[in-house]
């Protein structure tokens, strides 16, 4: 069977300063006179020599930092813009879910907009008639169908826009997870809708997500883009693991995060220099998993020999909720540091956190009653991020996780 998407040596160049190019300069360039405008320095390669083959029915994740070229690649695949070089071959109808609300017009009613937007996205009238009820029900706007959408609340608007977009039924689905929208209840609904689109068999999917847990669960293969080039392409688990260890401020086994420049408070008699975190388990890839062990290696510089009463590794949710506080003060022993560089290893036997991204906070203080400013040695509010993965990885269990803390549970129906 032929692959659904074939990309060969795809490149996309942007001119960063296209403004000064006047018509005269351009005509001059056509006639072969003068310098071609847009000198080397002003050009930017959003994508450089990207090659990728996706088989029909495959679910491929696309990861990378902001500016890595993910969106550019999706835009080219959905034909919004043309590549500067390279070839694409696509077999099947492409449905791209990059932004919601494409083609909506404020003066038209909800009903009209469903048809207009649907048509622009490539749905036929018959298809829309068939799915109309479904779309309206999903968006929960029955009462407002015949009201112009500019009178909608912003929540209603995005719900309707999203509903139209996810009800297209393409062979190849290109989607950007960023578009889950609305209040938290609708966000859940839209996320699970996206996941059901992806997991409904037989469809080729290219998925951009910043949530490594989602990528791990849904994708069999993964493409990692870095500054426009392919950094890695392969099994999701390996690619995600190496992405996490290298990406920005994610702490990993082989990735020591330098925190010397991080925002902090404290008198600085002892200072955190760097941190790395892994599972302490040599057999696995070193990734931290739910209910698995974690080992936190801290590099600390002290001015003099000092006994630190309280040294803590704190794990926060991304919303800032303190979840784990591994504080040496509670163990009853002071932490003895010598003048100069020290290494302190904090081990956590079992980390009861569900898969997801968390923030790491570091703390050192003396216990003289209240922790007043003078007693704080060093407090790094956000040292780095930590990714907790699902044990076992891509094992077919596709249920998304809600909440933060795992528990063991069972149920029975009483007779």
């Amino acid at each position: 069977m032929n692959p659904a998407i074939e990309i060969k040596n795809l490149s996309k160049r942007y001119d960063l300063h296209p403004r000064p190019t006047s018509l005269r300069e351009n005509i001059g360039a056509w006639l072969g006179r003068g310098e071609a405008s847009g000198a080397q320095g002003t050009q930017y390669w959003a994508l450089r020599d990207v090659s990728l083959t996706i088989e029909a029915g495959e679910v491929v994740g696309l990861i990378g930092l902001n500016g890595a070229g993910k969106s550019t690649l999706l835009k080219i695949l959905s034909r919004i813009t043309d590549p500067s070089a390279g070839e694409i071959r696509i077999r099947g109808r492409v449905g791209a879910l990059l932004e919601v609300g494409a083609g909506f017009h404020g003066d038209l009613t909800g009903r009209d907009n469903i048809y207009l937007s649907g048509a622009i996205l490539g749905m036929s009238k018959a298809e829309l008639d068939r799915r109309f009820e479904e779309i309206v029900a999903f968006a929960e706007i029955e009462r407002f169908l015949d009201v112009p959408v500019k009178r909608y609340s912003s929540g209603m608007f995005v719900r309707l826009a999203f509903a139209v977009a996810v009800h297209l039924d393409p062979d190849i689905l290109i989607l950007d997870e960023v578009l889950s929208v609305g209040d938290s209840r609708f966000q859940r609904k839209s996320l699970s809708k996206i996941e059901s689109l992806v997991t409904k068999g037989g469809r080729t999917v290219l998925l951009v997500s910043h949530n490594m847990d989602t990528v791990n669960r849904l994708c069999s293969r993964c493409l990692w883009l870095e500054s426009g080039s392919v950094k890695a392409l392969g099994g999701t688990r390996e690619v995600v693991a190496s992405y996490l260890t290298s990406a920005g401020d994610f702490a990993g086994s082989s990735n020591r995060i330098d925190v010397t420049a991080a925002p902090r408070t404290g008198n600085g008699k002892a200072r955190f220099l760097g941190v790395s975190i892994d599972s302490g388990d040599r057999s696995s890839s070193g990734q931290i998993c739910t209910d698995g062990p974690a080992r936190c290696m801290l590099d600390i510089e002290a001015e003099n020999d000092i006994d630190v009463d309280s040294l803590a590794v704190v794990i926060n949710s991304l919303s800032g909720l303190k979840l784990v506080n591994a504080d040496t003060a509670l163990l009853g022993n002071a932490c003895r540091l010598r003048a100069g560089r020290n290494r302190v290893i904090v081990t956590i036997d079992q980390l009861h956190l569900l898969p997801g991204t968390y923030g790491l906070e570091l703390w050192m203080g003396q216990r003289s009653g209240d922790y007043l400013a003078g007693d704080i040695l060093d407090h790094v509010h956000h040292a780095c991020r930590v990714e907790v993965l699902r044990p076992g990885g891509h094992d077919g269990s596709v249920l998304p996780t809600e909440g933060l803390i795992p528990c063991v549970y069972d149920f029975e129906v009483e007779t």
Partner: protein
Amino acid sequence: MLLVRRDLVTKYAQTMLGPLWFVIQPIVMAIVLSVAINGGAGVTTEGVPPFLFNLCSLAPWFYFSQTFGSVGATFVNNADLFQKVYFPRSSVPLAVGLSNLVALAIQTSLFLIVLVAYHVSGVWTSHSWRIVLIPVLFIELVVFTLGAGLCVASLAARYRDLVHAMQYLLLIAMFASLVFVPLSNLPTHLRWLPWFNPLAVIIESMRSLALNTSGVTAIQSVVSVAISGGLFLVGLLAFERASRTAVDLA
């Protein structure tokens, strides 16, 4: 196509008079032109009552100016949409061209009603049965307008200056297209105009068909049709080319 419906519905949404504007616009304009140009500046109209004369010319002129204006700004006005989703780009200007036909039809009907009224009251009774050919003339009008608009749109995707220049282009075009002057009234050194300006030919022919004025020669008509067709093809090709990378420039 749904885009046509969108253009129609949204154009006069939240206006009090709504579609009545289709009618008010040409009447006011025809009065202004009749008083200022034909009355004030003394431009004669081959004996046709100036109001009738101008009303006749204004229907195709309004179609041109409206359509040309919005087609020319296609990439600028739809940048938001084009950045989000792919669909055949040329459907937008085509939809504009089609939806504006409604205004053209209304304004032409208005003219015909006024023509009949003049007839009945005996003020102006000269007429021609060639008037039924007007729809054929409108085909050329659509082709020429879209052609010109597409050319400007393709250039304006890169050179935004054109969007600003457009209103001056339209002003010049109004004079160059004989909206309120019959060709026969032009000084001889300007008589070459219809050879290069299909719109002048269209408007002059419209009057000739409906009001029995002198009109243009057959060869001039043929040349204008050729120019319109050529312009349309060039415009379509240029537009397709421009649409591939236009979003990067937006």
